[in-house]
């Protein structure tokens, strides 16, 4: 007897077969002036609809001599790229931490999935259009849990790393609430920021040195590389995808002068000021 599976598994099985058919027909077109192309495909699936213990609908294809199966009519047609883009969520919106990574319980993620929310970016988009109370009311998730999850998962920079062997500087205010201090040696041309949600929904962080925009070389959810100008000194301002800002006091240090002040053992938790070492552009 065939094992029951979610409906998307059946759709995937059929669509991959239709893609294979289309590929075969296109190959045939290499040597033939006229070729067939698959336009529409429809199938009546005889299945038994089951509900598993997680509340997920599963289908089991009817076997020989089994009666009483339901019939599901499925039609496929060829679509163009603009049609796909119009009818699916953008890939950019999927680049966001999942609700499980936010710390929500499996039952809560299921409740949010029923209102079309599968990740943090989608939750924030919905909250912007309505408010937390509405999201909580329609999904059934406690509003306090939602607020806490959104608060703790805001975009943030945890550490900044300079050069390949340089220690990480924690993003904590210096004495008197001053911006964290970053010491850069001449010749070091990149900074790596580590944190969470540094890129999301197509938006990436922006960096400015004394108001002058500087290029972001690469960005992902958890890290971003920033190019530094030749003389890197001033106030480095990082604008995160949600519009919040982090500032750093960037100091270009002469290695000869700086040498006696280097604390070789400085770790992420030792101080808010850490010296940069190494001149390579690889990262630990």
């Amino acid at each position: 007897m065939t094992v029951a599976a979610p409906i998307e598994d059946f759709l995937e099985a059929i669509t991959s077969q239709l893609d294979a058919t289309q590929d075969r027909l296109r190959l045939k077109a290499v040597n033939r002036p006229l070729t067939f192309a698959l336009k529409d495909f429809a199938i009546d699936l005889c299945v038994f609809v089951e509900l598993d213990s997680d509340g997920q609908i599963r289908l089991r294809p009817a076997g020989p001599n089994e009666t009483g199966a339901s019939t599901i009519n499925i039609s496929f047609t060829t679509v163009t790229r603009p049609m796909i883009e119009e009818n699916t969520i953008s890939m950019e919106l999927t680049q966001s931490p999942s609700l499980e990574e936010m710390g929500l319980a499996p039952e809560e993620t299921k409740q949010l999935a029923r209102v079309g929310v599968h990740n943090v970016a989608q939750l924030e988009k919905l909250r912007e259009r309505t408010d937390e109370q509405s999201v909580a009311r329609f999904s059934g998730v406690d509003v306090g849990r939602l607020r806490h999850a959104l608060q703790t998962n805001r975009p943030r920079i945890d550490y900044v790393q300079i050069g390949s062997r340089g220690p990480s500087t924690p993003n904590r205010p210096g004495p008197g609430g001053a911006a964290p201090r970053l010491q850069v040696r001449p010749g070091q041309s990149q900074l790596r920021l580590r944190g969470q949600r540094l890129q999301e929904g197509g938006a990436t962080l922006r960096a400015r040195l004394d108001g002058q925009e500087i290029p972001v070389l690469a960005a992902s959810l958890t890290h971003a590389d920033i190019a530094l100008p030749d003389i890197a000194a001033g106030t480095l301002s990082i604008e995160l995808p949600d519009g919040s800002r982090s500032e750093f006091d960037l100091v270009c240090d002469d290695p000869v002068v700086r040498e006696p002040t280097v604390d070789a053992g400085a770790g992420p938790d030792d101080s808010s000021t850490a010296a940069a070492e190494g001149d390579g552009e690889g990262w630990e």
Partner: protein
Amino acid sequence: MKELSETVSELIAAFETPDIPGAPVAVEAEVETMVELSFVFTGGEYVALAAPPSSRFVSGLMAPVQRMRVRATRSMPADGENP
């Protein structure tokens, strides 16, 4: 039982005409047929298999039969569209 893609490809290939000058050419084919459709779990994924509804006569079992409709059109590939 063959994979669904092979069955559909062969079904469409049945409408191919020989490359003889002056021979009539089918430009659109719409086939509605009954098939035995089944799914097997292999290589970590479901694979759809399809065959004409003949196995019942061999095995003696009444395998479920599903209606399948395929529409294919024939056209001249544009320049650069070939794989």
